[in-house]
């Protein structure tokens, strides 16, 4: 092998293994995060999904806001849709996080009480910054940049992949078979992997390379947004006036918005005032570009006050790359394809680790370093799965009324992760099989447990239970078939 090829192989195998300890958990949580709305719904079984029309939902929201927030400067209404199956309202001063929020029952219009949990958002946050904030984004960004290098070096090293397209040889020696799966999954998900790594790095571009924000906006990355996104405001007059019912603006807004977009949310400024404004924002689920078009009306006369449906081309291209990463578009089919591609990518990386460790074992079997490397590998794959399951189990087992239960759920995740690492250090490479089989058992038991607790009363919850069951069964078959006790990887 040429020195150049050797260097590439070293980069791909060693670099790949070390970064896979991070990238596999990022991929597993990222794949789960694709289903964030559904998981959030599953994790708050107290909430009942709304099947109302937009107009009926809006009437309920408006009635409630008039009752509890008549004198507040800002009302927000989020209509039920595929990414949030409830009527949600918020009011008060400041951004959405500062405001008071309620979710309303679709029939009675009363607020629904739900257990305190981070829900599916936890997976999204862990995927994006490992819950470490800015330093976490730096770490994830570095892993993303390395991943691009690993993909390119991988294509160069495994140059036979295109000659051996479709090739899986399960019976021709263990190493050959593992390599075939690594190559097959690598080739099959190559477009997805390139796209997801690149767009992921682009999302973090301002964190990693803040030069532009520093030069042009004195280090405030939000300033560029303010320049491109219009704000529609005017001073209140101080005199009261009867506003039109909010649903009268819906049809007009939808005529102005794009064909595929319906109204997703509304923002009312100075409700009750003669100069009140109603701002409607379109859905982003019908388009790759993740920008919501906005149309603004005078709340009293109903006249068009302003709109923003045309966007700066730079912003459009940036938000298209962001949208490609987030996968809010395209419905369930796209969600499943992203989920499967992400998991296949994680499996591909885990097998890469197995391949390197099998080779290294021939010379270093039994030394402490080998033991730690194997343990890190097992804990990053099976361990992450178990940690995610611990999080979901904690959601069901911690009493709904318990104070600060949301942070307890997250504690369950990290405690389980720590335990799997300890287990992997103690058990050596048997840990691979044991952790995967344990994850399979937890998946199947969770599905049964939730189904007995009324999981099938709700369509989304029932679908998740079925998926948990299916994945548990699949994992069990794979664990039995490919990780036999006598021939651990």
């Amino acid at each position, binding site marked *: 092998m040429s020195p150049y090829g050797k260097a590439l192989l070293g980069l791909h195998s060693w670099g790949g293994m070390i970064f896979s300890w991070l990238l596999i958990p990022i991929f597993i949580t990222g794949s789960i995060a694709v289903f964030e709305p559904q998981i959030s719904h599953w994790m708050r079984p107290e909430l009942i999904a709304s099947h109302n029309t937009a107009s009926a939902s809006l009437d309920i929201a408006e009635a409630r806001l008039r009752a509890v927030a008549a004198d507040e400067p800002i009302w927000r209404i989020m209509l039920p849709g595929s990414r949030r199956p409830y009527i949600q309202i918020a009011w008060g001063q400041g951004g959405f996080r500062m405001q008071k929020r309620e979710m309303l029952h679709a029939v009675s219009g009363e607020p629904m009480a739900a257990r305190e949990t981070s829900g599916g958002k936890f997976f999204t946050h862990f995927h994006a910054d490992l819950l470490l904030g800015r330093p976490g984004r730096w770490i994830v960004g570095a892993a993303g940049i390395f991943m691009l290098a690993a993909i390119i070096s991988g294509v160069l090293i495994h140059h036979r992949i295109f000659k051996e*397209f*479709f*090739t*899986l*040889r*399960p*019976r021709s020696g263990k190493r050959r078979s593992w390599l075939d799966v690594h190559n*097959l*999954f690598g*080739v*099959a*998900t190559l*477009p*997805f992997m390139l796209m997801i790594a690149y767009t992921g790095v682009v999302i973090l571009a301002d964190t990693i390379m803040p030069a532009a924000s520093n030069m042009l906006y004195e280090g405030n990355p939000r300033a560029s947004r303010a320049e491109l996104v219009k704000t529609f405001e005017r001073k209140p007059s101080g005199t009261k006036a009867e506003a039109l019912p909010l649903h009268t603006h819906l049809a007009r807004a939808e005529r102005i918005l794009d064909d*595929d977009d319906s109204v997703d949310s509304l923002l009312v400024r100075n409700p009750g005032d003669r100069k009140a404004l109603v701002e409607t924002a379109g859905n982003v689920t*019908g*388009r*790759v*570009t993740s920008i919501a078009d906005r149309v603004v009306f005078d709340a009293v006369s109903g006249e068009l006050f302003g709109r923003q449906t045309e966007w700066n081309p730079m912003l459009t291209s940036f938000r*298209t790359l962001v949208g*490609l990463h987030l996968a809010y*578009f*395209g*419905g369930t*089919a*796209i969600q499943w*394809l*992203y989920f*499967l*591609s992400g998991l*296949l990518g994680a499996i591909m990386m885990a097998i890469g680790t197995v391949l390197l460790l099998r080779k290294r074992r021939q010379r270093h079997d039994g030394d402490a370093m080998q033991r730690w490397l194997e343990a890190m590998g097992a804990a990053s794959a099976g361990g992450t799965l178990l940690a995610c399951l611990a999080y979901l189990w904690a959601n069901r087992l911690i009493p709904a009324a318990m104070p600060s239960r949301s942070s307890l759920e997250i504690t369950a995740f990290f405690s389980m992760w720590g335990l799997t690492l300890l287990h992997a250090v103690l058990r050596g490479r048997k840990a691979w099989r044991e952790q995967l089989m344990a994850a399979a058992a937890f998946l199947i038991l969770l599905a049964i447990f939730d189904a007995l607790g009324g999981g099938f009363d709700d369509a989304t919850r029932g679908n998740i239970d079925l998926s948990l069951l299916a994945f548990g069964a699949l994992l069990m078959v794979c664990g039995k078939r490919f990780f036999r006790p006598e021939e651990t990887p």
Partner: protein
Amino acid sequence: MIMSFLLATMLNTGGMSCLALGMEQHYRTIYDASPGPNELPYWRRKGWVLLSLGLAVCLAGRRFAIGAVLWTGLLSIALISVAIFLAAHQKHKATRTMRLREADSTPHREIRPQ
């Protein structure tokens, strides 16, 4: 939308199967024979036609970008499905040959009347 999704899945999987038949090693797995002079290019052409039809179905009634993402995703799943099918088929063939050989070697010489 569901029909269009199923149709696109079938076209992409069919296209990938034809592309596999257009490669000599996989052709042998399926047909147990050497391909004729024009057979491999024939299957490859057919494969590309089916994949293009799959793309057309994905794009019809969807925004271009969404259709393209859907098609690419279905391509990945089709590739893996075809590879798993080929591996399973090969294994099935191997066990069948072994059984036939066992059946061949022992009993019927003794049963045959002298």
